[in-house]
């Protein structure tokens, strides 16, 4: 038998690979004994993607199957490679925020937060407490939106179409809040270096509280639909189990790791952005199968609602962006009266601000795991290098471990449970 796993994918992608195991026929009757030969030597290599409804974007899986059993799976990525990291090198720091938001397009607030916090670390800039709280509110709302979209599409893959309508319906409520505070549904560019772009508008708090009140009942509806659904249980229970040690070896973080029983959450492990002020729990699973991952994500939505409520209750008064005019734009009304403000405004808009040389790595807990921004500065107004440790990219490595040895149908569930966002994987 040829070494199938060792061969390059270019060789194996030639649609069908038949291993003849010497000169014997693959399927048929053994001439000597008259017994049927088992067709176990027949391997078939198929492409799943890049256009496949269940790959959540343009992921391509080179799958080798033996009958219905998956023997080898290799994810091939790069189909939405956008060169965002390279583009960031051409942009001033405050303009690069717009670019990094478009990486992981379901958790844009997190991308912006990681980048801004890395730049703030280099600048040694203090962020006002109100801005920290506003960031927490928006990040947690974004986490809810991301998980809702996950449950909508992951359930759709298994055939629970109702979840698509319900998930999208409730996600729209979060997007309405984003639209209220920033004017955009996606890619809001609300976070600035040194704080947030603008204070929340009047009515935002009331609308958010309405959402917090309405959401638990909706989550109960999801549970009622899925928790004891025969198909959902059969597809999810006991599939895609990876031991926690192996997950750590692969660098997998986020709900996948927590579902396996390791309570690693950066919000608790190394609190940033005032997360130490809030009282919340980290949901963990026991077995680490796909069902646990679903339960962990659903429980995380409940915890996020608690955080948003606490942040609204304890929202301090004060500025929402740093008063350092070298970093943040002066308020609009000052431009008419203050020459200095006009100069600062002009300098910031045309040239941007200079960041002292050095490098900073800031990890935060995105809906998919550890999202880290590594920013290197050479003292100029543009980043010398901006690199992101995207959780989708790292978690995608677990695909083969989850699916190999299982059935083809389990691959779909495994991919859905990883929740990869290809924009974040390819960047």
């Amino acid at each position, binding site marked *: 038998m040829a070494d199938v796993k060792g061969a390059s994918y270019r060789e194996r992608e030639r649609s069908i690979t038949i291993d003849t195991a010497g000169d014997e026929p693959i399927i048929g009757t053994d001439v000597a004994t008259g017994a049927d030969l088992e067709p176990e030597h027949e391997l078939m290599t198929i492409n799943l993607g*890049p*256009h*496949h*409804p269940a790959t959540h*974007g*343009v992921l391509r899986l080179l799958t080798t199957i033996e009958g219905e059993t998956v023997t080898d799976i290799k994810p091939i990525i*790069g*189909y*939405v*490679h*956008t*060169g*965002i990291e*390279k*583009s960031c090198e051409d942009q001033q720091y405050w303009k690069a925020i*717009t*670019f990094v938001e*478009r990486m992981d*397009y*379901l958790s844009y607030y997190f991308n912006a937060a990681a980048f801004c916090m890395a730049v703030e670390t280099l600048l040694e800039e203090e962020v006002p407490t109100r801005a920290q709280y506003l960031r927490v509110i928006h990040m947690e709302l974004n986490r809810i939106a991301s998980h809702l*979209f996950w449950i*909508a*599409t992951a359930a759709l893959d298994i055939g629970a179409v109702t979840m*698509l*309508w319900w*998930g*999208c*319906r409730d*996600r*729209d409520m979060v997007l309405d809040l984003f639209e209220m505070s920033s004017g955009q*549904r*996606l*890619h809001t560019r609300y976070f600035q270096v040194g704080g947030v772009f603008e204070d929340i508008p009047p009515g935002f708090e009331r609308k958010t509280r309405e959402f917090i009140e309405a959401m638990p009942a909706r989550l109960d509806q999801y549970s009622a639909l899925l928790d004891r659904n025969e198909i959902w249980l059969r597809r999810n229970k006991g599939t895609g189990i990876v031991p926690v040690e192996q997950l750590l070896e692969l660098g997998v973080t986020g709900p996948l790791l927590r579902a396996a029983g390791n309570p690693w959450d950066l919000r608790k492990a190394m609190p940033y952005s005032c997360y130490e002020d809030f009282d919340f729990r980290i949901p963990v699973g026991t077995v680490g199968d796909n069902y646990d991952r679903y339960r962990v994500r659903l429980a995380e939505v409940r915890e996020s609602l608690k955080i948003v409520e606490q942040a609204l209750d304890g929202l301090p008064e004060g500025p929402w962006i740093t008063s350092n005019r070298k970093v943040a734009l002066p308020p609009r009304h000052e431009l008419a009266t203050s020459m200095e403000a006009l100069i600062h405004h002009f300098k910031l808009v045309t040239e941007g601000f200079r960041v002292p040389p050095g490098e900073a790595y800031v990890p935060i807990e995105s809906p998919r795991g550890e999202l880290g921004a590594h920013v290197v500065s050479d003292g100029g107004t543009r980043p010398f290098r901006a690199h992101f440790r995207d959780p989708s990219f790292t978690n995608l490595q677990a695909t083969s471990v989850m699916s190999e040895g299982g059935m083809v149908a389990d691959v779909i569930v495994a991919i859905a449970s990883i929740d990869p966002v*290809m*924009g974040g994987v*390819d960047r």
Partner: protein
Amino acid sequence: MKRQKLDSMKVRGARAQQMLRGDLEGEDLEAYVEERVLLTKFHDAQNWARKNAMWPLGFGLACCAIEMITVIGSPRNDLSRFGAEVIRFTPRQADMLIISGRVSVKMAPVIRRLYDQMLEPKWVISMGACASSAGMFNNYALVAGCDKFLPVDVYVPGCPPRPEALMYGIIKLQEKVSGDEGLGWRERYQAEGTEEVA
């Protein structure tokens, strides 16, 4: 056998005459028919049917795909009002390709193949700034506009466009379909004979 068939046809003809005759005669009957029968060209009827049953290909690329799914999946924007909610995941059954997101150099041939696999008549909506012109990403990785490798019918601006914008684009496409006599872009642009074998 032949005799029987002839008889049944006679019966059917007589029935039809009776149905039309009813209580009306002469000019009254003609006015009655004119009121109820709509005369149109075959093309127009065909296009009317086509525009109201435009099945999109289930295909997403990046951020815009999320808004596209919102258009399809959110109860707020019910796409079935426009007869376009039947998502087909195989290009052979799809009429409309929505290019939702940035088109990388690696992805462009794949999209072209998907487009080639779709049956005529087929329509393309380029959704968002990236698909239309590479948008803000002016770099090595992206194809600056999907119209570089396939014909586009409607461009929807935005980064990403709001769901309402995409719906407006679909309505514009429907208007285009019902207003034009041609079957697809080849007839519209007088590009007969450019068919490629996929």
